[in-house]
């Protein structure tokens, strides 16, 4: 029983970590290559969820919903970059934070205007509504599918960055963008592609959570902040750091919420455990971040170490 609980929560943590990775991969690329702080990344995630829920309710096709939402957010990312984000590229990080904060306010309200204030729901397709059996544990098939899909995307991203020409340019741009530009690469297009790719991944993450979370205005912010924690822990600009950081944060956050209260109840008296359990559980990820940064301010996988 306890083993099943442990395994189930570990899978939940992994699934959450995978979603965080989809968010963090795009954001860390944008940070690393364009040196751009984008708080509106969470809004792209929110739009991804809304588009997917809308397409699913009109067409009835889940696969179509996921893909169209990802492509739409990819195009939206390219359009935002084209429309005005490029003005902000040369500005200080502070200006970028504030301008994208303005975009967050704008997006949350836009969603309220278009879809209303009430949360909307999206169903998992029938073939994923059952449970799969993993080592004797019945685990929801949909969550398992998220894990598999996320790992496939991570593999695809790894191949794209490490094995293709465009990936080589992205890596080169991360180390020295002026030099890449001087070698005749159109850095503006490279930036736009990276930004749109990151947006598309955020859209995919948003679309995937549609069936397990309620789709509502402001849903992007909690995820955004955890994504920032992932990136800081992993090392800004590092995809590998984003992957390990996301898995660790997903596991610690999910399992902490379940096991910290259990452990506290076993150790202290129940009233005390009930009072501090939830607080301690939600602090855990941030405490871990503080400890890591106290020893390694650059994060666990700083970009320079990639060589």
């Amino acid at each position, binding site marked *: 029983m306890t083993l099943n609980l442990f395994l189930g929560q570990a899978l939940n943590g992994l699934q959450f970590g995978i979603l965080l990775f989809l968010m963090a991969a795009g954001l860390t690329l944008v940070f690393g290559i364009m040196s751009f702080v984008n708080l509106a990344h969470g809004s792209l995630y929110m739009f991804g969820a809304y588009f997917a829920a809308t397409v699913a309710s009109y067409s009835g096709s889940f696969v179509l919903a996921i893909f169209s939402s990802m492509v739409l957010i990819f195009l939206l990312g390219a359009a935002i970059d084209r429309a005005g984000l490029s003005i902000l590229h040369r500005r*200080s990080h502070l*200006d970028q934070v504030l*301008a994208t904060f303005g975009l967050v306010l704008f997006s949350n309200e836009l969603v309220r205007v278009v879809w209303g204030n009430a949360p909307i729901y999206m169903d998992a397709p029938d073939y994923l509504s059952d449970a799969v059996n993993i080592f004797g544990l019945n685990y929801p098939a949909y969550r398992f599918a998220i894990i598999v899909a996320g790992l496939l995307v991570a593999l695809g991203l790894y191949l794209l960055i490490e094995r293709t020409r465009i990936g080589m340019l992205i890596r080169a741009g991360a180390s020295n963008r002026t030099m890449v530009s001087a070698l005749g690469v159109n850095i503006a297009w490279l930036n736009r592609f990276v930004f749109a790719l990151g947006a598309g991944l955020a859209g995919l993450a948003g679309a995937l959570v549609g069936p397990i979370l309620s789709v509502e205005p402001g849903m992007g912010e909690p995820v955004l902040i955890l994504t920032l924690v992932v990136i*800081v822990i992993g090392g800004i600009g590092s995809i590998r750091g984003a992957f390990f950081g996301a898995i660790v944060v997903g596991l610690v956050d999910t399992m902490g919420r379940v096991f910290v209260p259990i452990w506290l109840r076993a150790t202290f008296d129940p009233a005390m455990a009930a*009072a501090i359990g939830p607080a301690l559980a939600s602090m855990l990820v941030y405490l871990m971040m503080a400890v890591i940064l106290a020893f390694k301010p650059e*994060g666990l996988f700083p970009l320079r170490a990639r060589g």
Partner: protein
Amino acid sequence: MADPITAPIPVRADRRVWVAGFLMVLFALVPLYAWRADDVYVLTYFGRMLIFALAAVGLNLILGFGAMASLGHAMYFGFGAYTVGILSTWGLTNGWLHLSLALAVTAFIAIPVGWIALRTRGMAFIMITLAFAQLFFYVFVSLRAFGGDEGLSLTELSGFGALTGNKYAIYLSLLITLVLVLWFTHRLVKSRFGLVLRASRHNESRLNALGTASQPYRLVAYVLSAQICALAGFFMANLTGFVSPSLMSWLISAEFMVMVLLGGMGTVFGPVIGAAGLLLIEDGLKTVTEHWPLVLGALIVLAVIWLRQGLWGLMAPSGDTKASPVDQGEH
């Protein structure tokens, strides 16, 4: 672009001094109006403006003068407010106790948080301060004994004898505090301490090479700025009689930042203009449309792109290079 930082900050009687004086006189006349019109609500309304101004002045101390972009100062705002809330729940209502404990607790937390956060620069600093603020936000959300995410209505305010809970007294002490903090900031920035702080913004490695370790100065500035925000939170709890975790939300931190930028970074009085300006714009939009964040968000984007010197900078006499925005270069 980089102005010689050794030059004293000019105190010329340009029109901005008149604007600042005029604005403060207006704030001072509010209680008079409230008394004549028997309308205590205006004290709450303008008091809120002064509170946000106070917090923005505090944030500006590190953001404007030290280029430390903290996206987590709402957490100190919340500490100030919750000190009042928690102590009065426990039946401890001495106002001076509330005040001194708010400042002490803030320093106790700001020192380790600042120490960790200041090991990083630029982008990472922004994200770490945000993450710490989020940590404490969740702590207060899960403290059921003190209202959890619904907040806590104060049964008793900070006790100051006969003046307890008197809106006039709160407003006037708030105004006096703001003036004192502005004067303190002005003196601090001109002092040797301020010189090191401003120098660390321009060229930190040079400063360190000259034999001044900038880190302790930056940490002290960080803690002072946190305490000013806590002071603002202390007044917020007493003015509204209510505290909730939403005071510590990252949206409030971002709002403080917008106020500093809108007013004019690295100017002593700019944040006051920024705070008053942003709150007036917000309230103006609220009367026009239910979907005011749509307009406000767009306005913030436009202000960041075009209003680089802030409102305070716009009012500078033409040709005054000292009024240009501080360079916010990341080193």
